C-alpha cells in the first residue's frame, strides 16, 4: 500500500471549495513536487496531508503505518508569534519532541541530532541567539533544521527556499536530495522553482484549483500542463531562485 493515497479529495474554507479532484499516491522514497500558481491550493492540500484540515469530500489515507510523529514539516508561514523569546537551539530542539513523546526531557541523542541539523543548515553559530532577532533567511534555515529534526519517514516542505540566498538554495536542494537518496525519507515539497522541481523530483503534482497533472517527472515535460508551465508562463517568484539551479 502507498504511504499516502488521495482519492477525489476536495478542500474548502467555510464551505467554499478552493481545490478539488485530487487523486494521487505517494510511495515510500518518492520525491514529490507540488507546483502551481499563487492561490492554486498547494498549501491547503499540504494542510490536508498533515491532518490539519479535513477534506470536504473524498479521502486521504495513510498506509505503511505512517504516523504523524514520523513527519517533519516546514510551514509557509509559521504560526509562532514574532516576539516570542526562544533561542534558535530551543526552536530546533523542539522538532525532536515527536520522537521523544511522553518521556520527560530531551536525550543526548536528541541534542546531538539538533546540533547536527543546525550545522547542516549553517546556523550552528546562531545557536544561542534569539530567534526573533534573526534575518528572514536565517529564520527559514532554523525552521528547516527543526523540520529535519522531526522527520523520520516523511518531510513536507512548503516553499523551503523562499528567502534563501542562491548558495543556501543550492545547498538545501542538495541536502534534501541526499536525505531522500541516503535515508529513503519521502519528500513532498511545494515549490515555485519549476526548474529545480523538474530536475530533482521523482513525481510532479500540478494544481490549478484542481489537479491538472500527476505523474512521474519524466512525463511532465511531455504533458500539456508541463509544456505551458515550463516554457513561457514564468512565475515572478522564480526569478530570485532560478539562479540556484
Amino acid at each position, binding site marked *: 500500500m502507498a504511504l499516502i493515497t488521495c482519492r477525489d479529495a476536495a478542500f474548502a474554507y467555510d464551505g467554499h471549495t478552493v481545490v478539488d479532484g485530487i487523486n494521487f499516491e505517494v510511495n515510500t522514497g518518492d520525491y514529490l513536487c507540488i507546483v502551481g500558481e499563487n492561490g492554486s491550493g498547494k498549501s491547503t492540500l499540504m494542510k490536508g496531508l498533515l491532518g*490539519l484540515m479535513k477534506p470536504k469530500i473524498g479521502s486521504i489515507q495513510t498506509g505503511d503505518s505512517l504516523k504523524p510523529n*514520523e513527519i517533519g514539516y516546514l510551514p509557509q508561514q*509559521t504560526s*509562532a508569534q514574532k516576539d516570542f*523569546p*526562544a533561542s534558535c537551539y530551543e526552536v530546533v530542539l*523542539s522538532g525532536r519532541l515527536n520522537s*521523544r513523546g511522553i518521556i*520527560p526531557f530531551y536525550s543526548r541523542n536528541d541534542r546531538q541530532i539538533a546540533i547536527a541539523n543546525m550545522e547542516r543548515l549553517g546556523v550552528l553559530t546562531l545557536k544561542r541567539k534569539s530567534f526573533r532577532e534573526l534575518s528572514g533567511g536565517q529564520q527559514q534555515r532554523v525552521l528547516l533544521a527543526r523540520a529535519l529534526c522531526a522527520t523520520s519517514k516523511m518531510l513536507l516542505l512548503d516553499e523551503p527556499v523562499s528567502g534563501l540566498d542562491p548558495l543556501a538554495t543550492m545547498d538545501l536542494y542538495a541536502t534534501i536530495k541526499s536525505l531522500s537518496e541516503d535515508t529513503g525519507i519521502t519528500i513532498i515539497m511545494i515549490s515555485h522553482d519549476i526548474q529545480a522541481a523538474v530536475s530533482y523530483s521523482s513525481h510532479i503534482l500540478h494544481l490549478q484549483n484542481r489537479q491538472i497533472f500527476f505523474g512521474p517527472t519524466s512525463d511532465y515535460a511531455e504533458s500539456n500542463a508541463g509544456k505551458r508551465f515550463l516554457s513561457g508562463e514564468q512565475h515572478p517568484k522564480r526569478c530570485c531562485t532560478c539562479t540556484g539551479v
Partner: protein
Amino acid sequence: MVERISFMLSFSFMQRALIVGLVVSVCASLLGVSLVLKRYAMIGTGLSHVGYAALVGATALGFAPLAVSMPVVVGAAFLLLRLNENSKIKGDSAIALISASSFAVGVIIVSQTTGLNTHVCNAMFGSILAMTRMDLMLSVGLSIAVIVMFVLFYKQIFAVTYDETFALATGTRANAYKSLIAFLTAVTVVLGMRMMGALLIASLIIFPAITAMRLCKSFLSVVIVSVIVAVFCFFVGMMISFELDWPTGASVVSVNLVLFIIFSAAQFIKNRVGVA
C-alpha cells in the same frame, strides 16, 4: 533586617502564609510564561472572578469553599479554552463576558445574604490569616503537583506555546497539553485566591513573566527569571505588608510593578547602549 525577618517568622500564621504564598507564586509564574506568550493572560482574571462567585456561593450555601470552587474553576478554564478556539466571539471578549457575569452573580449572592462580609472581603482581597493548617497542607501538596507537572511536560509546553500548528502537524496532541495548562492554571488560581484575593491573583500570573521577558531571550531563561522574580516579589511584598500593615496582595503586586519598571528601564538602557 535579619532581625525583622526572624521576628516576622516567629508567628506561625506568618510562616504558613509565607510557605503557601511562595509555592503558589512559583506555580503562577511558571504557568504565566505560557499564558502570556499564548495571549491567554486574561484567563487568570476570568478564572479568578469565576472563583470569586463560586467561593461566595459556596459560603452562602454552607458548603466547603475549596471543594466547590476547585471543580467550578477547572470547568470554567476548559470552557474558556474552547471559546478561545472555535467560537465567533473573540477570545478576550469571551473571557470578559464570563468574568463579568460571574462577578455579577457573586455580587448578587452577597447582597442577598447577610453576615457574609468577612468572607466576601477575604474572597476579594485575600487574607493571610485565613490560612489553616489544612489549607497549608493542601496548598503545598497541589502546588508541588503543579510544579512537577510543569517540569515533566516542559518540552511539550514549550512546543505548544511556541508553535501549536507545527506541534499538531508533527504528531503532538496539542489540545491535550493546552488542557493541561488550563487545568494547572485553574488549580493555581483557586489556591492563590485564598491568600491574594480574586482581584490580585491574576497579576501573580502575568507580572513575573512580562518582567522576565524584558531582558531574557530564551524560553528557559524567561521561565527561570520569572520564578526568581515571583519569589523575590512575594517575599519583599510580605515583609512590607507585615511592617507597614498594608494588605498583603496589594503589597506583593506593588513590588511586582516596581520590579517591572526597573526591568523595563534596564531594557531601554540596554537597547540604547546597543545602538550607540
